[in-house]
């Protein structure tokens, strides 16, 4: 901001104070400072990057440090993401809980008053527990998961005990001598 602009801003703010009959001097300095700050042009990302790359003598080491560290971080993050999601693998997605295109929101509900922990395990999460929550303490535990269309077997685990007969299931099957619930997610014309 140029000096001329600063003067004009202060003048306009004072005029505004008078017009608003804010004769009280207390806090006037703060109000002007706030007004001036609000009119200062913000430094964009491009300007910041240009500043970093400016060929000043002392900044060269900093520039190289930033470029080198950024490259290393990108490499590491890229590897980490590829490794975790198996995006580079021909086997497709890993656990279906990973965000998937065309995924449906599926609500899992389990009434378990007094329970300490409730989770859902199934073919969509490699049978690893995904916790349900009872935020309003009404004994109804819920979790909403994003699942791609498909047929999934699952069961609830209430305080360590498996419960495979979900009233909201589409069907039930026996597995290892116990019940599993089944949901068809992404049915045309039907809910999940």
């Amino acid at each position, binding site marked *: 901001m140029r000096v001329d602009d600063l003067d004009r801003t202060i003048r306009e703010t004072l005029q505004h104070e008078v017009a608003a009959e804010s004769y009280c001097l207390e806090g006037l300095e703060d109000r002007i400072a706030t007004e001036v700050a609000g009119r200062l042009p913000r430094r964009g990302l491009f300007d910041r990057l240009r500043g970093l790359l400016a060929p000043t003598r*002392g900044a060269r080491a900093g520039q190289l*440090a930033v470029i080198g*560290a950024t490259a290393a971080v990108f490499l590491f993050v890229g590897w980490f993401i590829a490794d975790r999601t198996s995006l580079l*693998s021909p086997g497709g997605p890993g656990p279906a809980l990973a965000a998937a295109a065309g995924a449906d929101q599926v609500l899992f509900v389990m009434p378990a008053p007094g329970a300490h922990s409730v989770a859902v395990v199934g073919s969509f999460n490699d049978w690893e527990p995904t916790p349900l929550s009872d935020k309003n303490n009404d004994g109804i535990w819920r979790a909403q998961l994003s699942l791609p269309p498909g047929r999934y*077997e699952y069961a609830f685990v209430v305080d360590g005990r498996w419960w495979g007969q979900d009233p909201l299931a589409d069907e039930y099957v026996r597995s290892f001598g116990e019940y599993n619930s089944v949901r068809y997610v992404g049915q045309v014309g039907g809910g999940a």
Partner: protein
Amino acid sequence: MKARLAKGLVVVLAIGLTVAAGGIAQSDTDRVRSALGSLAVKTQDEILSAFQIGFSQGRLAPSEAYHLIDRLAAADGDAAEKEAILLTIAHALQDDLPVSLLVEKAEEGLARRVSLSMILNGSAGQPRILGLKQREFLLGAVRDLLFSKGIFSVPEGGQGEPAALPVLRFDHVVNAISDFLADYIEAGKSPLEGSAMMDELSHRLNNLCALQTPVIPQEDLQLVLDRVGPGDLTTIALKLVEQP
């Protein structure tokens, strides 16, 4: 002088980080080999080469393999039985079969803390429990049935025009029918009720076809319903229950 020193340090740091990231991102085979090392399996090369086939065909994701091996390593039980579970999956891959159902059942069994012997061999008691060996048999029997019906291959004297499906689509059909037959038998229903079995299979396949992204496309569903009959299902189901 100081600037040069700083520049040198930055270059060394960047190279070091890059090399470290590259080193960590070792190949899938190396990671599976390393995970198998924790199980001390004797048939590591056989399992590795079969899993590599699965990775390249898209029938087994490396993440699924690591997860199962890690879970086996953490489970209680005999190391030979852990190895037998992995070998069953490896043999299925070598036999050109889909393995997602086998991996899934092994994961479920381990999560339920079922004994390794039960996961592998099931139980002929009541209720009947199918282990990975019986499920591998089912996958092979259903695959052979489809072949005999001219689906995917061109057998001599096959019925109708041969229908060649892409491998993963064919796998979905094999999986769907095998999984249905396993559920049917585990539910304690009679393998002699061919018509009832066929009706239930049709219902299952229609459900899989009616999804927004169908697991079984309409044309594949129609192929199966046109060419597979109650007698075919009864034959496989009877052979399954006669399995040791």
